[in-house]
């Protein structure tokens, strides 16, 4: 697992390395236009299409992909009359910030934002910490029952979350944690996936590092905090981004664990608002924009952490 490496960070031989090869005459006929002969990307039907067709298809796909976001953004600046106006336009006739003002009054929107921050942030911080502790024990410490512990972690990984949803509701209800932050956060404060991911990363860190420190008299805690954790920073960041994104966007869990609008997160709260009889679409879209904003900004700044977790777990 090469968690820390970004997809883009890998050097690509394609194109650059063709200079190494002398192209034999017989194979010249495969060289079309200026595409390098042995480019990995240049395999498949895609490259049999003409350049114009390729661009047109990509552009069409990209337009469909961004259109909902653009429409959401455009509508959030529209006066309500524009929403019903004819002909429909993407951009507002008179851009206004009214929607961004009313959202705070029409909904306990500030509460939703705070709830989302506490819930997603809380789960992220606590989970990454607990996961790293457990992963350290599984990767580095010897103790009776280690293999069993590891396989138990793997076993719980297989069970879909929905299987536990019904009993979890009952459990959280019995503890009296419905509609509380701890009810939202504590059941998620660790995950088999996170433990497994970090454990796989920790075992790739050379043991010699720990041993050198131990010779110098370092304690187990020191090795964990000062050697393993700094080495594992990319993995911790990827896992953190993964947790934050999933919980920020989560819907079913907050929907079940909270009945009080004041305790909902953004997706669950906005849905409630969207289900009302009179919906002001501009206001709703402003809420959607705000709820997307933190992740969009984080994505713009640190795209590789969003991608690397997915890309590398897929590599084996």
């Amino acid at each position, binding site marked *: 697992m090469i968690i820390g490496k970004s997809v883009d960070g890998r050097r690509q031989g394609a194109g650059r390395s063709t200079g190494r090869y002398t192209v034999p005459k017989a194979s010249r006929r495969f060289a079309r236009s200026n595409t390098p002969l042995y480019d990995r990307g240049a*395999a498949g039907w895609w490259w049999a299409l003409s350049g114009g067709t390729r661009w047109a298809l990509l552009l069409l796909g990209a337009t469909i992909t961004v259109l*909902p976001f653009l429409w959401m953004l455009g509508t959030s600046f529209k006066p309500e009359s524009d929403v019903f106006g004819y002909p429909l336009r993407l951009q507002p006739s008179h851009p206004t910030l009214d929607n961004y003002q009313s959202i705070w009054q029409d909904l306990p929107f500030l509460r939703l934002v705070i709830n989302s921050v506490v819930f997603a942030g809380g789960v992220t911080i606590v989970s990454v910490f607990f996961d790293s502790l457990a992963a350290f024990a599984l990767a580095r410490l010897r103790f009776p029952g280690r293999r069993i512990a590891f396989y138990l972690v793997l076993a719980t990984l297989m069970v879909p979350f929905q*299987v536990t949803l019904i*009993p979890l509701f009952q*459990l959280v209800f019995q503890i009296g944690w419905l509609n509380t932050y701890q009810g939202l956060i504590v059941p998620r404060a660790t995950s088999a996936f996170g433990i497994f991911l970090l454990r796989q990363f920790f075992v790739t860190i050379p043991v010699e590092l720990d041993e050198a420190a131990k010779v110098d008299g370092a304690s187990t805690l020191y090795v964990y905090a000062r050697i393993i954790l700094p080495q594992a920073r990319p993995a911790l960041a990827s896992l953190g981004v993964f947790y934050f994104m999933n919980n920020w966007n989560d819907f079913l869990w907050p929907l079940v664990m909270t009945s009080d609008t004041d305790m909902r997160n953004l997706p669950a709260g906005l*849905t409630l608002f969207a289900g009302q009889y009179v919906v002001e679409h501009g206001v709703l879209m402003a809420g959607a924009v705000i709820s997307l904003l933190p992740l969009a900004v984080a994505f713009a700044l640190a795209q590789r952490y969003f991608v690397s977790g997915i890309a590398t777990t*897929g590599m084996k």
Partner: protein
Amino acid sequence: MVPVSATGLGPAPRGRARPRQPAPTRQAGLRQLARDSRAYIFLLPSAVILIVFVAYPIVQSFWMSLHTWSFFASSHPFVGLQNYQTMVHDSRFWNALENTALYTGVEVPLQVGLGLALAVALQRNTLVNKFLRSVFFFPVISSLATMGIVWKFLLDPQIGAINAALTSVGLPTVDFLQSTTWALPAVMFVGVWKSVGFSMVIFLAALQDVPEPLLEAAALDGAGRWLRFWRIVLPLLRHSLLFASIMATIASMQLFDSVYVMTSGGPIFHTETLVTYIYDAGFQYFQAGYAAAMSWVLFMLILVLSMLQLRLFRYSEVD
């Protein structure tokens, strides 16, 4: 992910081989205990949470499925497998299963296929390609529930942009989400839109590992682009294809957010999925036992589908 990672377990953690133990003295035994307890302290927080909030609920869920169970009732009569028998005769369950299967059957191939096509198309590291990759990946970071609200608005028959576009080219308006024909395809479309970037990223990473000399040799032997892709690239992407399709299948089988937001399972149950039915059974009708039984069926279905795909891609063979 599960089966993949499970097979990709790798070697046992490196570490010193346990030295031959001398005959244990009392002192050495105590020292050993102290060392073990350190490990248990590291494990403690996660262990407690996993046991109380994951392992126990898994068992409890199965236990509940054997009872007529209501959350707030004082007693829960044991009924054996009756909940599972009820399911066999429950047409609403079969309908939900059918919708889930249809959704999965359409969404997964589209997501994986388009993801692969995009990865091949955007494989070179040019500036434009990098930008386009970000564009196609962007929906992955958005919330399916929130974007469901946006899509519902876009698909609206009166004020939606999509119907405005249809009208402008002379086509009739379609009330997509209220139409028994179009509601499920619309939900499928949103699913593909949301997740195609996820598959793309998996394939982009895997494409970098395709060894160039192989392609070179094939080209010299006269293999065209299509043949090289079909015979070299695709077989080398087998593990990634497996991973991408298992992940997509698991997510599709658990579909909830977009359906709940866009159609609430309607019109007349035409988009109801297993998970929306489980939600309704558990939290609207308070038939917790029945809902738990359905969640176990969902679990088994996901397990079987994952195993089938492992077989299909012959994961353990060859390499």
